[in-house]
């Protein structure tokens, strides 16, 4: 029977040999992410910055110039217009100007826009977030990312050893920073769903890393005298087929969502697609090199083995 095989049966890719190059690259990414974070910053959505978003649908293809001039004379402060999906849909963004959004979460803005555009357009979506809530959301989002990274560290530490935990955490931090970098470079809208995507990426990247770690642990027991670099290479090659397969099925699902899922969640899906790609890379090239660098106390594998045997006997 014919089988689709993305990865040949026995690969012997010397991953470890290129690790310095990869680690260097990852360092560049993380440093660049920090640099962009503090210089260019993010295109924060209203969740984090406050402000108002109104999505309208026009009967005729929307005339942005006309809309811009009509909304411009309302003196709402910073107004941005952007096509959303097709020609008929327009997204109106009004920044959080202090005097308007403070008490009524943009209700005056919405009323002014509605008075100007009237009932000739359909109001598909109206969202306003006041400064108080957006401030809290920034805090909650930051906290969520930190808590989930710590929770992963603790879990991996508990299941493996601290070296593995550290490798896992560094690979997550790498993935998060790389995704953040892309959002900053291309000034993609950064909102609450982006955080949801980041946390999903954290979970996914962890998933990949854990499978590799599990195999490394197993091989540590099996080949007690093998050089660590060789052993990591062997483990990565053995799990490569699975790593690629799972990434592909996940990407298939996400691409379906990206293409057919509509404009509202496109940036959310984009973040996840990017994160899956980077997460696959990092479980090979961040987590494992960290193990190489700090080394593993191999005696530990014996006690783990007996524990595993005991568990298997249950």
């Amino acid at each position: 029977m014919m089988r689709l095989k993305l990865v040949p049966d026995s690969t012997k890719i010397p991953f470890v040999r290129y690790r310095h190059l990869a680690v260097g690259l990852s360092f560049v990414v993380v440093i660049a992410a920090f640099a962009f974070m503090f210089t260019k910053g993010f295109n924060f959505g209203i969740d984090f910055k406050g402000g108002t978003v109104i999505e309208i649908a026009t009967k005729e293809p929307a005339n942005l110039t006309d809309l811009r001039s009509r909304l411009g004379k309302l003196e709402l402060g910073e107004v941005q217009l952007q096509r959303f999906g097709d020609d008929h849909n327009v997204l109106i963004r009004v920044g959080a100007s202090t005097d308007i959004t403070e008490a009524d979460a943009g209700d005056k803005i919405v009323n002014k826009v509605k008075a100007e555009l009237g009932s000739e357009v359909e109001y598909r979506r109206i969202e306003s977030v006041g400064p108080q809530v957006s401030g809290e959301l920034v805090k909650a989002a930051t906290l969520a990312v930190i808590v989930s990274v710590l929770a992963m560290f603790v879990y991996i530490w508990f299941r493996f050893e601290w070296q593995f935990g550290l490798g896992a955490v560094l690979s997550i931090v790498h993935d998060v920073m790389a995704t953040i970098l892309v959002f900053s470079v291309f000034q993609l809208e950064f909102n609450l769903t982006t955080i949801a995507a980041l946390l999903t990426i954290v979970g996914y990247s962890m998933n990949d890393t854990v499978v590799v770690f599990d195999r490394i642990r197993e091989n540590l027991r099996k080949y007690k005298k093998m050089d660590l670099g060789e052993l990591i290479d062997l483990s990565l090659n053995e799990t490569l087929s699975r790593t690629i397969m799972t990434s592909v099925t996940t990407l298939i699902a996400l691409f379906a969502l990206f293409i057919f899922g509509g404009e509202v969640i496109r940036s959310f899906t984009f973040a996840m697609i990017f994160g899956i790609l980077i997460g696959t890379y990092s479980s090979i090239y961040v987590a494992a090199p960290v193990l190489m660098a700090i080394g593993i106390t191999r005696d530990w594998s014996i006690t783990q083995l007996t524990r595993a045997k005991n568990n298997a006997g249950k």
Partner: protein
Amino acid sequence: MLHFERWKIALIALVTLTGILFTIPNFLNKETLASVPAFLPSKQVNLGLDLRGGSYLLLRVETEGINKDRLQSQMNDVRRALRDAKVLYTGLGVQGDSIVVRITKQEDIEAAEKAIEALSTLIAGNVLTGSIGERDIAVAVDGTQITVTNTPAAILARAQSAIQQSMEIVRRRVDEMGTTEPVIQQQGLDRILVQVPGLDDPQRLIKILGQTAKLNFRLVDTSTTAQQALQTRVVPAGSEVLYMTESPDTPILVKRRIMVGGDSLKDAQPGFDSRTGEPVVNFSFDNTGGRQFGDVTRENVGRPFAIVLDDKVISAPVIREAILGGSGQISGNFTVQQANDLSILLRAGALPAPLTILEQRTVGASLGADSIRSGIIASIIGSVAVVIFMVASYGMFGVFANIALIVNVFLILGALSLLQATLTLPGIAGIILTIGTAVDANVLIYERIREELRSGKTVIAALDAGYNRALAPIIDANVTHFISAAVLFELGSGPVRGFAVTLAIGVLTSVFTAVTVNRLIVSTWVRRARPKSLVL
């Protein structure tokens, strides 16, 4: 690996069937659903506002003002208490958060303290805050000066009761608007969450909720005109300058004393004036209110009185004759909608404290419908692509994995229906993502079986080893997914929380289907086919 005990098979079948049974109602229309017998599940997945359309409002109860109002009325109480006790005093006033009064005669201090102490009451105790047995005010004597402060427990209790009351008023107002299935919940200490499905004009809701709607009837002060009072900056004691609702530049001088308050209203209905035909609000007082209104109007025939709503004067008609029937009419150049909204406000009652809007999100029904449609299309295309890919990669075992995948989708939808969790657009994304990752467990198992076969094991031994050895990484990998979903659930609100819910449910069900259901199918196949060799 081959052996499944009978009860285990029964249990797996039971879980699967339950999942399917709870999913079915989602594919039925309302009429069919109504005819489903009561013992069968009939709950559909709860769609989030982003899918069904509707408004989400986050309101804050501004409780700060309550204490200011309270201090004013407490000051009046103190004045009366001291007068009744025949104590001479000076400089009674509010300073910051306390009431301060200076007692003229040294020998009166004890009597004054006693009289003021007598005003204090026990606050409604709260076991959680440990405020049982505490009094609402604390009286401190310093020389000839007496300071009255509200205890923190009293301030907290008052804020809490204001929030409870606000919730009730908000509920009444939303209900009066004729909405279906609104959700009104307290959030945090001082916030109210309002979700109204199907509402496409949130601005009207905001307008109705944004008004305190404190209505009262007061006499107009005719001793001088408002213009003169403003020019000379001398406002007669006991009066204040207010403005008309209709023309915000027109001042009017109104007495502070309230003839009848809005809390005496029994009913308010929109109607039309019998002579002019303009929209009005007809109201009626309860017994006490009616008597008060009758007394005041009888004593003030020929003078104008003001109908004041939230410190703005709706109208100031002249009293033509005593109004004794306990009912009346408010006119103020209303539109039909304004008359309607005002009567809603009057019927529902006044808010104990103003509400501010912290966040509003509204999705129109058409966008919601579009989102459902694209969500379903994306789900179908994504699933079909994954299913094809699995068959292409693993042949018959791919089919086995796909059966498990389909069971998984049923279990997720069944669990969502059973738990009445809210399905949002990101939630649909979560299901699609789960479809992509759910096969991961099968991939892990199959890749392991491939390896074991390559190392020369027999079919049975390879299958056995595949399932056993892949279990640890499967559990680890899914725990990590679950952790991120749990954190997301704690953080998120609305749509994002919906994503976390489907992700978490998906992790649980996919471990069950990809490991247990899939193993049952494979073991059944092995027992029937007894394969000598296996190409995977």
